[in-house]
């Protein structure tokens, strides 16, 4: 069964007829030719497909495209406003936070989500005082909050300081 929807990905609005079985990830990659989000496991376990859906990080492989009708989707590419790299892009380069790069767009989107969640004071399972109301992105907090993004090259040791540097600049790391 095909359904007519409109996807808005990285500021580009695209009317699209999709089979109801199509995931947001496949619609972006195969129909809109936006290959910034990557297909890793396709089961929500690796995080390579992470995008921001109406500002929240989600696994696009588990979102049916029909349910994203009219929503605002931002990929790692879309974070580069006006062609200028996002602070996270620059930081990942500076800290050499990747090897093959396949998981990187998902890592970047997830990190953007982590920063936004911390700015709202959201706690994590390693947060000592759940009632604090503010978040301090320590290394342990970053590791926990980025746990939904796997890196088979194991660049984690560089991803943590790359995210920490941006968190420090944005005031969510003391």
């Amino acid at each position, binding site marked *: 069964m095909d359904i007519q929807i409109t996807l808005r990905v990285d500021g580009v609005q695209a009317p699209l007829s999709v089979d*109801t079985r199509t995931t947001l990830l496949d619609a972006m990659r195969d129909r809109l030719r936006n290959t910034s989000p990557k297909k890793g496991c396709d089961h929500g376990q690796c*995080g390579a497909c992470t995008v921001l859906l109406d500002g929240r*990080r*989600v*696994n696009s492989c*588990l979102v049916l495209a029909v349910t994203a009708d009219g929503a605002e989707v931002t990929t790692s590419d879309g974070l580069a406003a006006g062609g200028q790299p996002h602070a996270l892009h620059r930081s990942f380069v500076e800290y050499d936070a990747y090897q093959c790069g396949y998981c990187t767009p998902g890592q970047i989107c*997830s990190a953007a989500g982590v920063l936004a969640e911390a700015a709202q004071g959201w706690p*994590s399972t390693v947060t000592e005082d759940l*009632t604090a109301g503010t978040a301090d992105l320590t290394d342990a907090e970053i590791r926990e909050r980025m746990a*939904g993004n796997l890196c088979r090259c194991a660049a984690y040791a560089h991803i943590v300081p790359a995210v920490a540097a941006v968190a420090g600049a944005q005031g969510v790391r003391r």
Partner: protein
Amino acid sequence: MREFRYERATDLAGAVATLAAAPDGAYLGGGTNLVDLMKLGVATPDVLVDVRELTSTAVEELPGGGLRIGAAVPNADLGADRRVRERYPVLAQALLSGASGQLRNRATTGGNLLQRTRCSYFTDVTKPCNKRAPGSGCGALQGAHRNHAVLGATIDGPDSPVTCIATHPSDMAVAMVALDAVVQVLGPDGERSIPIAGLHRLPGDDPSRDTTLRHGELITAIDLPPLPAGTVSRYRKSRDRASFAFALVSVAVAVALEDGVVADVRLALGGVAHKPWRAAAAEEALRGQPPTEAAVTAAARAELAAATPLPENGFKVPLAQNLLVRTLLDLTGASR
């Protein structure tokens, strides 16, 4: 994936009517479990009724001090809700310990309760599984069952049509069982309230059914009653890696002391049974007792006395006992 029709209703009654008329249909919430199961061929609905934007995303105060959680409240938002963090820390901790940040953003409260077991025989359509394919037997009983149930399972041989040793995977539901949450449901016959202990069921002689919900019934909200004054609570989860893994065993503990003895105690175990396991025997043993190491140890042993460990999952019995004992002692201060 089987082809399906995608439906959106304009109101809850319309959604219920649509699904009631579709015997092979299903509700779609966040989809983090259902879409995955559809990809695997485990779930094969021919109609999806999208209720994510239809059910409530609000957490509201109830008269008397409780909270009403809309079924579509994302797990992330509920774990971050200030009232949940302050009044029900056991629930906030359970939510924050589950899944990943991305999944918690999409997964809903109602959907979390209704997620299916992660038993690898259930999710592999080439294997026998009485839950997925009733009557096909249980591959796990003589297979890989390290993650499986030690309480309340149906163990009747690998070829039996009733054998099932699957566990319920939710962390959130374990805390809600300890908190005596009440599940609000709308169905073809109207509304009803289900005490959460009566929502999930043991496999019994029909492992295909996870819950007591009837076809077409939709969870609209979950109510949390207020806890007795002075209650302290905690969720503790043991797993194979530090993050983003299901529980091997978890415990939800809420306890209030009065004059040095246990006045109120609610205990639930995760990862040990087909449903979140309310540890009623341990509660009974503790009520009115000072929470000494001897008393809590005896209570934990009383709960696990009925365990039926298998060759690979026997470790869960002492693990559950130790988690209960340590968490109770930590919370009541007797260990310090």
